């Protein structure tokens, strides 16, 4: 029996200036299903959904709701048609409470706030959302903020919920709650469009998958025919071959590049952040630090790169004490750093790619001559970098803020690999990136290892650590819980260690 779709997009195209964001995209959404929209970053998934939600205007094609042509010009129109979208970056007023955010634009005149609070709290409880609605958004955890965003939609009684990369910001537990909500929500006859680039999530929750690449729909699969390998190939357009780790332990005989000797750090309230951290990294060694975010990894990076001075302990880099060296001295001595928050610590979004390449080298004289920038050399270098790391950009004069996250990360990677002639520090380098970019970063790490560089990889992803590292240690509440050769640990043991529990026999 042919079901009638609740929403149908027909031959939608969208252009930004000259760039094609969506070309001839057609898809249907049926009541009671979870439609996963799968694709790499920049594949046009968010764009097509923003068109449906009235944020963008399409240049071609038509939208049908309940088989009738609909003219959606604004999110308000979309909501009237029963469509709401939770965007990747929440649109919440952080200084207001959940209730205030939810009723914004939906009330008139005097606001009886306590009546609204209890009404919306009841709604939250109905869906099993454990979130206080009368607390300011800025006081809530990200997972709770997302629940407020979803409540905004539920409050309007919509029946199609679009979720844009909803798990990117969630902890594994929060993701589970979200998945449970989605399942119960569609059981009531509602529909969910789930935008993601994570195959695991698709496998778990989707009733149907539409795969997009470069702005077009490249395939569609029903629940029964889902197969991870097939989806990955569709999504990326080519087979992904993971880099092979050289497990010969050649690095053991090579000299120590970084020696961290008993460092400790306190914050301004005298709470210990790092306690007696010691480890060594040899040339050609990838040393992994596993751990749940916020256990002192970021501060450890700050200390290693000279942003913070440890209270106690010493750091030796190529047998030289660099504990008290300035950041500039760190950079010039051959230490490269790919930080967690690239937009805050690594690039200036409003400047061009070449200017960002120059950023950490401005003192070295590499790109300047008597104070003048060697524009041509710098641009050539940047162009080479774009080609080498397959950065999606039109040229060195592009603004780095206009690139996707993965491409920004590859830009940072390219710069830091050149600066870090002996040591590279990576803090969660693949977080939130799509498979193509992750693959590129892993390959570069392996290549640099082969070249004899010491590499520190801080990660929360267990698979990544097992795939890349020679030695894995676990950080928990500012302490190193143990140091193991790759192979000595299995996934369960590492998971337990990350939770602060030392498994028996280790």
């Amino acid at each position, binding site marked *: 029996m042919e079901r009638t779709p609740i929403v149908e997009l027909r031959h939608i195209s969208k252009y930004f200036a000259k760039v094609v964001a969506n070309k001839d995209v057609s898809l249907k959404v049926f009541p009671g299903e979870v439609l996963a929209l799968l694709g790499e970053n920049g594949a046009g998934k968010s764009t097509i959904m923003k068109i449906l939600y009235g944020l963008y205007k399409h240049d071609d094609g038509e939208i049908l709701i309940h088989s009738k042509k609909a003219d959606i010009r*604004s*999110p308000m129109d979309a909501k009237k048609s029963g469509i709401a979208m939770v965007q990747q970056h929440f649109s919440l007023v*952080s200084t*207001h409470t959940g209730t*205030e955010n939810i009723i914004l*634009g939906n*009330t008139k005149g005097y606001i009886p706030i306590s009546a609204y609070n209890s009404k919306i709290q009841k709604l939250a409880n109905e869906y099993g959302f454990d979130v206080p609605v009368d607390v300011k958004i800025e006081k809530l955890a990200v997972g709770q903020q997302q629940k407020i965003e979803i409540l905004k939609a539920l409050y309007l009684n919509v029946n199609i919920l679009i979720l844009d990369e909803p798990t990117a910001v969630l902890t594994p537990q929060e993701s589970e709650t979200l998945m449970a909500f989605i399942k119960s929500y569609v059981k009531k006859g509602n529909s969910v469009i789930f935008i993601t680039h994570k195959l695991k999530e698709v496998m778990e929750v989707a009733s149907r998958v539409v795969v997009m690449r470069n702005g077009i729909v490249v395939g569609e699969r029903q629940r029964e025919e889902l197969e991870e390998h097939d989806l990955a190939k569709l999504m990326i357009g080519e087979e992904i071959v993971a880099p092979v780790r050289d497990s010969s332990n050649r690095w053991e005989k090579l000299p120590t590049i970084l020696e961290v000797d008993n460092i400790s750090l306190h914050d301004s309230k005298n709470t210990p952040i790092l306690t007696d951290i010691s480890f060594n990294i040899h040339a050609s060694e990838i040393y992994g630090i596993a751990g749940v975010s916020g256990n002192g990894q970021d501060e450890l990076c700050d200390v290693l790169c000279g942003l913070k001075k440890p209270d106690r302990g010493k750091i030796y880099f190529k047998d030289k004490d660099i504990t008290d060296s300035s950041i500039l001295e760190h950079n010039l001595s051959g230490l490269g750093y790919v930080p967690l928050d690239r937009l805050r610590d690594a690039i200036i979004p409003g400047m061009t790619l070449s200017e960002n390449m120059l950023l950490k080298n401005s003192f070295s004289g590499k790109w300047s001559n008597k104070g003048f920038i060697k524009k041509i050399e710098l641009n050539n270098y940047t162009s080479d970098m774009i080609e080498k790391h397959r950065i999606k950009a039109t040229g060195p004069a592009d603004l780095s803020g206009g690139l996707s996250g993965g491409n920004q990360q590859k830009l940072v990677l390219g710069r830091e690999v050149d600066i870090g002639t002996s040591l590279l520090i990576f803090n969660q380098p693949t977080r939130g990136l799509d498979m193509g970019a992750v693959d590129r970063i892993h390959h570069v790490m392996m290549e640099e290892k082969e070249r004899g560089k010491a590499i520190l990889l801080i990660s929360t992803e267990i698979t990544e650590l097992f795939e890349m590292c020679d030695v894995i240690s676990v950080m928990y509440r500012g302490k190193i819980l143990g140091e193991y050769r790759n192979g000595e640990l299995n996934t369960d043991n590492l998971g337990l260690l990350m939770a602060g529990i030392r498994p028996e026999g280790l």
Partner: protein
Amino acid sequence: MTNLLYRTILMSTPLLLGSVAEVFSERCGVMVCAIEGIFLIGAWGGFVGTYLTHNAFIGIMLAILCGTALSALYAFVTVTLGQQQVVTGTALNILAAGFCAFFQRVIFGVPTSPLVIDTLPILRIPILSNIPFIGTILFSQNIITYLAYLLIPLSYYVLFKTSLGLKIRSAGENPVAVDTAGINVTKLRFLTVLVAGSLGGLAGSFYTIGYVGMFTTNIIGGRGWIAFAICFLGNWTPYGVLFGTLAFGLADALSIYIQAVSTSSYFPREIVIALPYALTIILTVMRSNLRVPAVLGIPYKKDN
């Protein structure tokens, strides 16, 4: 002492109106940097209207109209066109100064004796004005001061208890959220700036109609900027700016009082005149943990 406090309330009135105007507009994300010019054009409009018609009410209306008109121009450039607010404000302040000086000359020529108008009559509130001390200070003022009294609880109510207030505050924190809630941010901001302009025009008229009875091009003398600063000091709340304006009103009254009574020449007059301005700097520097609206001064541009 009674006189000093009476004058404090008197001098606070326009600052209060002006800073409440700023509270509204800044809460929705727009700094009205043209506030000095709006004060001035309000003062001028109030003077012209009253002088020509001998009717203070028409003067006040003209003042409000002038203030609204200038703020409409400001809103068009900064909100509709999304241009830089500080630069636009500065330009309009200069424009207002030139405009007033020019048309003052066009309308009145160069009079041999200063042109004067009657200042607003003192309205004694029955019963309340008979209370000793307080009655004289609070309840023997003119109509604009009473309006300013009412404005504080009213604006608090609007900002924090109504849907409109929620929209305005949200627009200054996260306009994207307001937009996706189906509210036209540009329209909301434009109208808020207009309301701020009308309050600013009224505030300006107080100097000519309510107090001096004359118009000079330097009559405002930076008090628009003081209202601007008080909005910051008052942490963008109506009751916060009330305290701020009283402090400045006191400084203003004190400086006028000292100028009047001190006949000796060894206490420099200039220092006394500078008192309210010095206070602006001192209080602004001292005030910490301000809750600045997140997108204050940033135009909202919708991408399509």
